[in-house]
């Protein structure tokens, strides 16, 4: 189908984009990769009156590691992350895994990491990884920039902390130390499908092999990506042995609150949440050379 008519403006700077967004308020939407917005407009699920295209904004396409943070600019594509030279380092294994399973390889050449966070699909992959990594989003408005922790950024299905007249300019992922690894586990019906269930895991070990920090999150398990705090608490301070992994997996199953749909029923998806958290923990530990 053809989208409803709209007005198109192309911004060349962040200030220009924000001026357009301020002027049009709730009628305007940012156009980033367009890989969620354009399909939604074709189905007339979205009918924005104005699109502010940020793809020509200078200095928004970058992956920058500094001050212990990896910053991903708002027009960096999923494929930029997938192809980055440093991505093979096990510290980045969670976001590397995600960059290879979001959507399909062509969609990834347009779709952006920040756009995915802003879209906040209940079955999104980047949102889930951002929770497990304890990422932040930099939001700019007329008054300047604020940095929003991901738990506050993801408000509800398709709703974020980005207000009217504002835009997200970057996502910030804390740089993991060298005793950190992660894993993204996703069950999909076919390449390019949203998750039936998925789990993001990131784990940091102390020198004595006990867990220093853990990030565990689920996709397709509620109104938006879900942190499993109980599983994180269970892991921290303990040696990541089999019984602890099983307890964390059980906590994930209990916490998961999926909807039944063509991809599967509630019980099946809750079961998958536990299986995927356990698999993710085992793979992250294997990447660290540690045995569960």
């Amino acid at each position: 189908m053809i989208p409803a008519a709209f007005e198109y403006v192309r911004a060349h700077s962040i200030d220009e984009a924000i001026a357009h967004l301020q002027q049009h308020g709730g009628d305007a939407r940012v156009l980033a990769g367009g890989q969620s917005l354009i399909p939604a407009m074709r189905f007339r699920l979205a009918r924005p009156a104005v699109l502010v295209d940020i793809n020509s904004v200078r200095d928004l396409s970058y992956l920058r590691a500094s001050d212990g943070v990896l910053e991903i600019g708002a027009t960096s594509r999923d494929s930029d992350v997938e192809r980055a030279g440093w991505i093979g380092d096990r510290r980045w294994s969670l976001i590397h895994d995600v960059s290879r399973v979001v959507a399909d390889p062509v969609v990834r050449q347009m779709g952006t990491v920040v756009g995915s966070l802003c879209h906040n699909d209940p079955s999104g992959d980047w949102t889930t990884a951002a929770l497990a990594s304890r990422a932040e989003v930099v939001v700019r408005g007329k008054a300047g920039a604020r940095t929003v922790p991901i738990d506050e950024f993801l408000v509800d299905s398709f709703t974020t902390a980005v207000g009217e007249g504002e835009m997200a300019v970057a996502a910030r992922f804390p740089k993991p130390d060298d005793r950190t690894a992660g894993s993204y586990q996703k069950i999909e019906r076919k390449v390019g499908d949203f998750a039936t269930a998925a789990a993001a895991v990131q784990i940091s070990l102390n020198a004595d092999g006990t867990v220093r920090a853990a990030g565990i999150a689920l996709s397709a398990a509620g109104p938006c990506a879900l942190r499993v705090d109980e599983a994180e608490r269970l892991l921290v301070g303990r040696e990541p042995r089999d019984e602890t992994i099983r307890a964390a997996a059980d906590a994930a199953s209990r916490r998961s609150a999926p909807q039944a749909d063509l991809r599967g029923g509630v019980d099946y998806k809750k079961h998958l949440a536990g299986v995927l958290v356990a698999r993710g923990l085992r793979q992250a530990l294997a990447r660290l050379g540690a045995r569960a």
Partner: protein
Amino acid sequence: MKIHVTINGAAYERDVEPRTLLVHFLRDDCGQTGTHVGCDTSSCGCCVVVVDGDRAVKSCTMFAVQADGREIRTVEGLADGGTLHPLQQAFWDQHGLQCGYCTPGMLLTAYALLKHNPAPTDADIREGLAGNLCRCTGYQNIVKSVQQAAGTLGHPSAATA
């Protein structure tokens, strides 16, 4: 809205509605009907074109106005006069197509893939083409075709051998 787009090296200036999808612009406004439409859900990859040299894009999931000032390559722009592009020749040689409906998208996706990865493994090719659906070939010969083209492009002298 007036836009200037370079398609296969030729300049096109047209007046389009912002809601015009790039694929419809190519087919209906510019008469370049080699780019196909196979679905309504951004899922099939039939419509893939290459934007600015090395980015494969589903032209059903981009507005024509976004292409203003950019370079688009479509299947019509692969051959050099009467000489098929190595990818086209390889699809011919290896029976990489049957009905041909998916082929323009396969060719352009593979074109961008080889720009980034000139010596792909079979697994790289399968992963790279995972967003392109083919209902006929079973993919086997498409992988062989891309592999042959990678060889030809990597060793230009082999093309005549």
